[in-house]
């Protein structure tokens, strides 16, 4: 017996990829928007290796309307995978109706058809000229697709957190992400990450 989605208060998001992709920054901005500006209960955690670049990196945000006991994700509602390794490693933590968003520049093999592929790194490199802002494009897409945070507040939190002088670039990247996400229709996706035979 799985609880109905409407009464599932806890909402869990994981931003994953490799160290240096800015996933922790994205998660912190998300948590700040949902927690400080939207007034929800949030817990933001992360885990990473001892190295500064490379290695596996993941950052999580748990949202709830009531105080959060266990601070880490248990059963993901949304997984952002910014490379193939992260996608393969964390896909199985998604719940059956969870949503997988991948960076299609770096993820080539999709584990499910319930997936939103957006070429975050490609857009950042080719259109915005800085590969570094792929995380902000992804943040825009996650913000739009999860329906758990006000986009205005997310943008406000973003402008507060990014280094001075880079606001415009990051804002542009963020809006580009929202734009890309608007093109995706969640209704067209399969309802579950399980294969269709399982669902019948």
């Amino acid at each position, binding site marked *: 017996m799985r609880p109905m989605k409407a009464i599932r208060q806890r909402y869990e998001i994981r931003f994953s990829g490799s160290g240096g992709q800015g996933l922790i920054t994205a998660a912190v901005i998300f*948590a700040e928007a949902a927690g400080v500006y939207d007034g929800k209960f949030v817990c933001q955690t992360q885990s990473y290796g001892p190295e500064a670049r490379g290695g596996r990196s993941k950052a999580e945000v748990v949202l709830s309307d009531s105080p959060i006991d*266990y601070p880490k994700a248990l059963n993901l509602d949304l997984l952002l995978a910014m490379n193939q390794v992260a996608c393969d490693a964390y896909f199985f933590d998604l719940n059956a109706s969870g949503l997988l968003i991948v960076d299609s520049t770096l993820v080539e093999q999709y584990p499910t058809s319930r997936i939103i592929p957006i070429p975050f790194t490609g857009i950042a490199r080719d259109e915005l000229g800085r590969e570094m802002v792929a995380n902000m494009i992804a943040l825009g897409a996650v913000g739009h697709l999860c329906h758990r945070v006000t986009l205005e507040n997310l943008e406000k939190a973003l402008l507060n957190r990014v280094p001075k002088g880079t606001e415009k670039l990051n804002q542009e990247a963020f809006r580009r992400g929202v734009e890309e996400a608007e093109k995706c229709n969640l209704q067209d996706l399969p309802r579950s990450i399980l294969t269709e035979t399982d669902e019948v």
Partner: protein
Amino acid sequence: MISDLENKRLLLQGNEAVAYGALAAGCRFFAGYPITPATEISELLAAELPKVGGTFAQMEDEIASMGAIIGASLAGVKSMTATSGPGFSLMQENLGYACVAEVPCVIVNVMRGGPSTGLPTCPSQGDVQMARWGTHGDHPIIVLATSSVEDSFSITVKAFNLSEQFRVPVIILSDEVVAHTRECVQLPELKRIRIVDRIRPSVPPDWYKPYEGDNRGVPHMAAFGDGYRHHVTGLIHDEHGFPTQKENEVLHFQNRLTQKITRGFPEIMMTRNFMLEDAEVAVIAYGSVARSAYKAVEDARKQGTKAGLLQLITLFPFCRSQVTPVLEQCRAVLVPEMNMGQISREVQRVNQGKSIVVKHNRIDGNFITPQELYTQLVKL
């Protein structure tokens, strides 16, 4: 500045909350050496202390850091240092000095996987017994454990208060999960926070006996430079602060050192209860693991198991008076820890056959999940 943050909703890390707690409690001196996962405390205080007229010093190592905060405290300034396991090992010698010279100070140990340099980015609770017995000799000490961002703020304030009140070093044990989790908190109004300061001597300088306990057993403390000339030593000393080997004086000193803490038990020992009233099985947990335990207890209740939780905030002196009733009431008690069983030892010591004590230990660098505890709980 901290006064600008009152009543504001903030997204803070556990480490940042510790730093703000220290500022709120009146800490005006910090000496430390950076180490993962405690560095954020130094970073924030390096930026904030000068704004409130305080001093931040990055020392050459943790031995010197501990020495510096003892010096600052003797000069009358509330002081703190923060480190993780490897640095905490280095602090033990000077920590003993702070115990015997009765110098109030706060040491934050953000625990990471050990021994040695171990697992720098992974959580652990491996330093619990070390916090109690790390420095040699029988010594009084207070060890507190924090489990959330909100806790990190209020427990740091409490740590400073206890330290000043009893003239004893207080150790705050945090861990990688608490330290790096960001949560929304609202800092309380600064003037509503209860702050305790050490009692300064009221007698004329000629009458001052620096190590004569008052009725609580705590000597009044003059700062260097106040005009109260006195001697501070790591040797066992008489009431005037000079070394002694006379049996009666040594005995009196040792007893006073222990008894000042024993008399303060009601104020020092802090716990939290969750669904314990009618519990038949209970979890005794502390630090970040207590958060997993809250969820596990809730889930077990839904399934029909009468479970409860006793969260320890004060680890040492061990909360015997709160743990004993739980052991008497419950048929079994689960003690989950991210070590091989350091508090479960204390629970077993207090237990004396009253209940069944079951350990649950995890030492692979991962955080204990609610599911693990739930599975254990419903089996009890």
